[in-house]
C-alpha cells in the first residue's frame, strides 16, 4: 500500500496521465486550418464528448479541494451550489437552442461574436473580449499555483517545475489540438474526475460505517439547514452565483457552438444535468466524510487531502492526477477561448480586418504561448492580489447574463441598455470586490464571495430593463435577421414576450 502513495508513484501517475492526454490530442486534434475547426471543433461534436467537456471545464483545478472543503465546512447548508446546477441546465437549454442556430448560420466562435453582432456594439465586442482575456490569465495562473503546490507536496517535485510542466504541456497540446483536441481530452479528464469521486465516496462511506453512521456522527450544523438569514444568504448567494456564470463564461459558453446539431444538444443538456447531479453528490459526501475523518478545524482545502492520506492512501495518486486533470481541462478551454477572442474579436475586428483564417489561427497559437508565459509569470511570482483577480473572473462573466437573455428572448432589448447595464455591473462588481470599505454598504448582500457579483448583476439587470424600455430598440431589420434563423430552425413563428 505504501508504494501506491510514494512520491515516485504519484509523479509517475502524472506522467502517464500527461502521456495519455497528449496521445488523445494527437488522435483527435483539429486538422484543418479553419477558424471553425480550430475554435469550435467544426461544430461536429456529439453529445457525449460535449457533455463531458462542459462538466470537465466546470470542474476547475481547485474544485476537488475547495468545493469539497465548502461541504466540509458548511455541510448541507452549501447545497445551494447543487440546486444551482439542477436549475442551470434549463437556461442552458433555452439559451443554447437559440444561440446554436445563429452561431452556425453566422459563423460565431466566441461569445463576443454574438454580443457584438447582435447589439451592433463595438464596446461589448472589444471591451468584453479584452476584459475576458485579462481576467482569464490570472485564472490560468491560479490553476497553475494549485497544481504546483500539490505536486510539490505529494510528488516532491519543486513548485517551479510543477508550474512549468502544467503550462508547457497544457499550452502545447491546446495550440496543437485546438478545440477538438481539448474536447476529447475533457472526456478523459472528466471520466477520471467522476470515477475517482464515485470510488472515493463508496470506499470512505463504507469504512465510516455507512450513510446512517456518518449522518449520526456529524454535528447538527452539518446535517440540518438552519433557517437564519446568514444560512439563507449562503444558499441563495451560491445558487445565483453558480447559475449565472457557467452560461456566460467565455470558455464554457463555446460548447453551445461545438455541438453537432440541435437534436444532439437536447441529449447534451440532459446528460450534462445528470453528470452535474452526480458531481454535486460526490462533493457533498466527500465533504461530510472528511469532517468525520479529518475532524473539525482543518483548513477547508486540506480536509479531503488529510482524509485520503489517512484513510485511503492508495487513492492519493489518483486524487493528485484528478486535481491536475481538473486544472488542465479548465486551462485548455480557457486558452482556446482567449485565443479565439484575441484573433477574431480584437485583431480581425479592429487591427487587421482582412486577416486570413490561416493567419488568424497562427496569431492565435502565438497568443496562447504569450498567455501561458504571462500565467507562468503570475504563478511563479504569486502576488497576493491574484486571488482577488480570480474572484473577478466569475463576477465579470456574470454581467453578460441580462444582455444575453435579453438578446435571445426580449424584443425591446436595446444596445444602450446592454452597454450601460454591463459597464455599470462590471464597475460595481470590481468596486465591491477590491474596495468594499470605500463604498457604501451593498443594499443586497448575500454574503461571501458571490456578494459583489450578485449585487452588480441586480443593478445591471435593472438598468438594462429600465433603459431598454425608454431607448430605441434595435432596428427591426437587424433583429429580423436573427428571428428568421430562429424561425427556420423551429419551423414556426417566434413569439418573444
Amino acid at each position, binding site marked *: 500500500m505504501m508504494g501506491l502513495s510514494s512520491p515516485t508513484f504519484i509523479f509517475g501517475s502524472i506522467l502517464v496521465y500527461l502521456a495519455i492526454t497528449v496521445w488523445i490530442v494527437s488522435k483527435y486534434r483539429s486538422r484543418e486550418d479553419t477558424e471553425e475547426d480550430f475554435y469550435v471543433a467544426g461544430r461536429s461534436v456529439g453529445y457525449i464528448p460535449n457533455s463531458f467537456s462542459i462538466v470537465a471545464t466546470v470542474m476547475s483545478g481547485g474544485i476537488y479541494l475547495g468545493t469539497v472543503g465548502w461541504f466540509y465546512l458548511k455541510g448541507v447548508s452549501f447545497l445551494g451550489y447543487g440546486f444551482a446546477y439542477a436549475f442551470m441546465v*434549463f437556461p442552458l*437549454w433555452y439559451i443554447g437552442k437559440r444561440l446554436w442556430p445563429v452561431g452556425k448560420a453566422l459563423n460565431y466562435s466566441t461569445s463576443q461574436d454574438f454580443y457584438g453582432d447582435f447589439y451592433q456594439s463595438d464596446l461589448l465586442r472589444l471591451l468584453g473580449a479584452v476584459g475576458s482575456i485579462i481576467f482569464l490569465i490570472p485564472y490560468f495562473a491560479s490553476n497553475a499555483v494549485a497544481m504546483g503546490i500539490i505536486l510539490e507536496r505529494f510528488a516532491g517535485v519543486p513548485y517551479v517545475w510543477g508550474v512549468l510542466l502544467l503550462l508547457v504541456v497544457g499550452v502545447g497540446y491546446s495550440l496543437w489540438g485546438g478545440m477538438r483536441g481539448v474536447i476529447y481530452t475533457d472526456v478523459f479528464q472528466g471520466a477520471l474526475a467522476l470515477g475517482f469521486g464515485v470510488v472515493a465516496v463508496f470506499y470512505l462511506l463504507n469504512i465510516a460505517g455507512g*450513510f446512517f453512521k456518518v449522518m449520526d456522527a456529524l454535528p447538527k450544523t452539518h446535517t*440540518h*439547514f438552519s433557517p437564519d438569514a446568514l444560512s439563507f444568504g449562503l444558499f441563495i448567494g451560491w445558487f445565483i452565483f453558480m447559475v449565472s456564470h457557467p452560461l456566460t463564461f467565455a470558455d464554457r459558453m463555446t460548447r453551445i457552438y461545438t455541438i453537432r446539431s440541435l437534436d444532439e444538444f437536447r441529449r447534451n443538456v440532459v446528460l450534462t444535468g445528470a453528470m452535474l447531479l452526480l458531481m*454535486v453528490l460526490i462533493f457533498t459526501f466527500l465533504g461530510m466524510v472528511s469532517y468525520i475523518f479529518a475532524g473539525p478545524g482543518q483548513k477547508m482545502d486540506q480536509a479531503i487531502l488529510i482524509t485520503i492520506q489517512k484513510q485511503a492512501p492508495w487513492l492519493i495518486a489518483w486524487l493528485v492526477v484528478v486535481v491536475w486533470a481538473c486544472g488542465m481541462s479548465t486551462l485548455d478551454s480557457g486558452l482556446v477561448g482567449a485565443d479565439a477572442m484575441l484573433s477574431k474579436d480584437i485583431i480581425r475586428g479592429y487591427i487587421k480586418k482582412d486577416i486570413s483564417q490561416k493567419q488568424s489561427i497562427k496569431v492565435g497559437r502565438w497568443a496562447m504561448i504569450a498567455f501561458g508565459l504571462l500565467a507562468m509569470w503570475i504563478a511563479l511570482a504569486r502576488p497576493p492580489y491574484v486571488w482577488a483577480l480570480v474572484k473577478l473572473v466569475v463576477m465579470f462573466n456574470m454581467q453578460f447574463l441580462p444582455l444575453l437573455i435579453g438578446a435571445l428572448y426580449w424584443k425591446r432589448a436595446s444596445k444602450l441598455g446592454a452597454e450601460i447595464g454591463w459597464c455599470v455591473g462590471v464597475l460595481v462588481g470590481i468596486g465591491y470586490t477590491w474596495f468594499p470599505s470605500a463604498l457604501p454598504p451593498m443594499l443586497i448582500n448575500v454574503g461571501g464571495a458571490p456578494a459583489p457579483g450578485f449585487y452588480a448583476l441586480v443593478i445591471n439587470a435593472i438598468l438594462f430593463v429600465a433603459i431598454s424600455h425608454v431607448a430605441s430598440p434595435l432596428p427591426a431589420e437587424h433583429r429580423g435577421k436573427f428571428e428568421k434563423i430562429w424561425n427556420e430552425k423551429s419551423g414556426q413563428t417566434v413569439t418573444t414576450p
Partner: protein
Amino acid sequence: MVKEGSLTTNGWMFVVFLVLTITTPINPFINHRYFNILWYAIVALFALWILVRVVFEEEDA
C-alpha cells in the same frame, strides 16, 4: 414551458421545482438528519425529469 402566454404543465412543474428549491433552507418538513441530502437528490432528479419533458416533448423545443 410557456404557450400563448400561459404556463404549460411543464411550466407549472418548473415553478414547483423552483419553490421547492428556494424554500429548502426554511422548509421544516424536510429538515431531518438523514433526509436533507436525499431531498437534494430527489429535487434534482425531479428537475431532470422536467428537463427531459421540456427538451424532447415541447412543441416549440
